[in-house]
């Protein structure tokens, strides 16, 4: 893994903190780091250049906020610009007046079109629509069978013509079937193709002309590198792209390709694939993606909020605990109260560097917090201060008392022990906050 942007900012922050106005030189300095961070996140160089130039212009014209430090200001602008390029608010599919709505899936080989098509079908079905999947990848061996199987799993009909070779014709007949059956959507899966393969690109154009899609989704692997711009440009020439689907976002790729694709196509990323199951499709959140690409979370806001939420002596007490590795459930409970003051946990999570890529999916963090709290509150003070006495019968009692399951209680205790272990490692080392995985602090604030 590469260093996160926030760690790169270490020096700059130290120098910039508490200085008044933002000079051109300071803007340049921050922007150089942003440029590197974007490149390391696989944003295509051309897009990086254009993007950085755009930010520079905005930064120079920007009003000076009293409440923000100069570096904070640049980063705020960068963040807003990133979110803007990625499409602003999360966006859904275009509505159509007369069904069926035609959705064409396009992309390189192995980008995840077939899986994304099936996920989308299931998603639409879940919303009460009646989609049809059209198997128009006639090239890859067993692609038709794959879609048929996935359709079955999703409970969505599939128009397939095994052995057929004329993709546009198959697509057209799928559309006819949708009309005849009164279906609401047709999702057309196509072969993966290289953007430099003229024959195959022409075939894609022919499929598009055959069905005149309302929505053409360019499916892009989150791991894609610099080539994303070339790919996006070539597909744009052949079809009218209306949105991007970013797949395999459950890995640890920073996903800069999303920015490249959005920038070149001018289209928002509409969905993100976050797993191999058919339910693993999420609406895309540009704000989360912006932090992920920058690799930094919203450290500045985090620090500010933490400063507000924790009393000074409370933090000092914690420091002592950490040093002696004596952390207890009692301390944890106290911390939870402070963190609650900082806002919804899901939001706080977004501020932590490195946490953005955790595979939480759409799990409801804020609903979990009270459960954890209930478990701890069902412990006796002695148990909270000495978890080692928590035997089976105590755990069962706690589960009953908190309305949770013994498994949950076990899990919490296990994880708590891991945190303690981590603390012992920290206190054994230099005792710096850096030992917390995924968390890096600008030292202007830290040491």
């Amino acid at each position, binding site marked *: 893994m590469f260093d996160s942007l926030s760690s790169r900012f270490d020096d700059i922050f130290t120098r910039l903190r508490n200085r008044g106005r933002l000079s051109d030189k300071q803007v340049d300095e921050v922007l150089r780091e942003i440029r590197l961070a974007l490149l390391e996140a696989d944003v295509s160089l051309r897009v990086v250049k254009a993007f950085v130039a755009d930010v520079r212009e905005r930064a120079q014209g920007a009003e000076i906020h009293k409440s923000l430090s100069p570096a904070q200001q640049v980063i705020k602008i960068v963040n807003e610009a990133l979110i803007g390029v990625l499409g602003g608010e999360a966006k859904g599919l275009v509505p159509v007046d007369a069904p069926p709505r035609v959705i064409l899936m396009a992309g390189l*080989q192995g980008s995840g079109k077939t899986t994304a098509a099936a996920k989308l079908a299931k998603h639409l079905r879940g919303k009460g629509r009646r989609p049809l999947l059209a198997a128009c990848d006639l*090239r890859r061996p067993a692609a038709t069978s794959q879609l048929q199987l996935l359709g079955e799993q999703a409970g969505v009909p599939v128009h397939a013509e095994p052995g057929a070779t004329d993709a546009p014709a198959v697509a057209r007949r799928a559309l006819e079937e949708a009309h005849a059956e009164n279906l609401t959507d047709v999702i057309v899966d196509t072969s993966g193709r290289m953007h430099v393969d003229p024959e195959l690109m022409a075939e894609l154009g022919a499929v598009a002309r055959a069905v005149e899609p309302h929505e053409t989704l360019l499916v892009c692997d989150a791991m894609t590198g*610099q080539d994303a711009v070339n790919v996006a440009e070539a597909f744009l020439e052949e079809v009218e792209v209306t949105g991007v689907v970013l797949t395999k976002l*459950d890995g640890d790729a920073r996903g800069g390709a999303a920015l490249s694709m959005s920038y070149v196509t001018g289209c928002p990323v509409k969905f993100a694939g976050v797993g191999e199951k058919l339910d693993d499709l999420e609406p895309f959140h540009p704000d989360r993606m912006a932090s992920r690409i920058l690799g930094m979370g919203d450290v500045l806001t985090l620090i500010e909020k933490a400063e507000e939420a924790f009393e000074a002596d409370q933090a000092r007490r914690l420091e002592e605990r*950490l040093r002696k590795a004596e952390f207890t459930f009692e301390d944890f409970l106290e911390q939870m109260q*402070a963190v609650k003051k900082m806002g919804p946990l899901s939001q706080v999570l977004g501020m932590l560097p490195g946490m953005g890529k955790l*595979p939480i999916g759409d799990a409801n963090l804020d609903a979990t917090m009270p459960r954890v709290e209930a478990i701890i509150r069902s412990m006796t003070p002695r148990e909270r201060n000495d978890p080692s006495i928590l035997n089976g019968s105590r755990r069962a009692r706690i589960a009953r008392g908190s309305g949770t399951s013994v*498994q949950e209680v076990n899990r919490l205790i296990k*994880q708590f022990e891991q945190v303690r272990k981590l603390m012992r490692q920290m206190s054994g080392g230099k005792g710096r906050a850096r030992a917390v995985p995924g968390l890096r602090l600008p030292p202007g604030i830290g040491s």
Partner: protein
Amino acid sequence: MITAVVFAVVAVAIVVGLIVAFVTTTRARSRQLGLEEDAEGRVVEPEGRGGVNVEPEGRGGVIAPPAAEPPAAPSAAPPVEVPEAVRPALRDRLARSRRFLAGRVRDALGAGLDDDAWDDLEAALIQADTGVGTATAVVSEVRAEARAAGVTDVDGIRTLMAQRLLARFAADAPRALTIGPPPSVWLVVGVNGTGKTTTIGKIAADQAARGRRVVMAAADTFRAAADEQLEAWARRAGAELVKHRPGADPGAVAFDALAHARARGHDLLIVDTAGRLHTKVPLMDELAKIRRVVEKEGRVDEVLLVLDATAGQNGLAQARSFAAATGVTGVVLTKLDGTAKGGIAVAVEQELGIPIKLIGVGEGLGDLEPFEPRRFVEALLG
């Protein structure tokens, strides 16, 4: 001095970290066990599976005891003629996509060797996906050498760049595939969609053409129709195939295929595995288990990691994780027939010491070539 706010932030991290861990383990377990989650994200555990420490390995481990499922009759089929579009030679294809760097060098030098020119050279390498680290290092090495040797012309700089890049590939790295006394076993691994199955088809065809008897194991029992896809390639390549039913234990498929290979006197067993993200611990464990199962009765001579040239910096993280889980012996770099340059291969070989062995340059049976560092670097530079 450590200030209080650091610890406030640490506290936040601890709270968030714990809650996240709590939520994600709940989800991970429910995914593996096929449990349902209710509206609040709580796991609804079905009767009889309430054990606290049930941690099945990987996907599909729950279904069908492999012993009860005899392998489908291996389908030996005669090689089938594959209709293939006439494809331009590799050299042309590479050249078409790679001319830009030469242009870069010329552009950069046209204006004299100032800082901007060197920045442009660095940018060119970055655009080839070498990563900022490699690009900066190469350029600063070339810069120092050029200054020392007084080199200022396009060809001279280009030669220096090629040398510096080439130096990152071990000259004596073993790039040929190792085949021991029969049956030799090769595992093929990688993240989703990189080209594992296709590469296996190509490798099998190549080995068959060298007179070897090849059998494939359809150990991707997870992805829909993966076995059917591999079967098509087995037919094309003139290889046999051993498969179980979907969802079966992949280790068992590999194990049975090995027994089959031994019984029939095959030279080579190639195991196709399901694509998996390198960040998913249970799935990486599953891969290690497949290897262990094979090694109970046989010998794994190659573990080939298939990397997609289109992918960027994440390729390095992939290589690192797969190497740790299965001991990767070589990399196959696929999809070099596009405009992506696969520059991350430089870092993979240099930093991890894993040799790049083969390249994929298309979707046809013959679109597989040995990796030659010199040609790769030449292509990279135009």
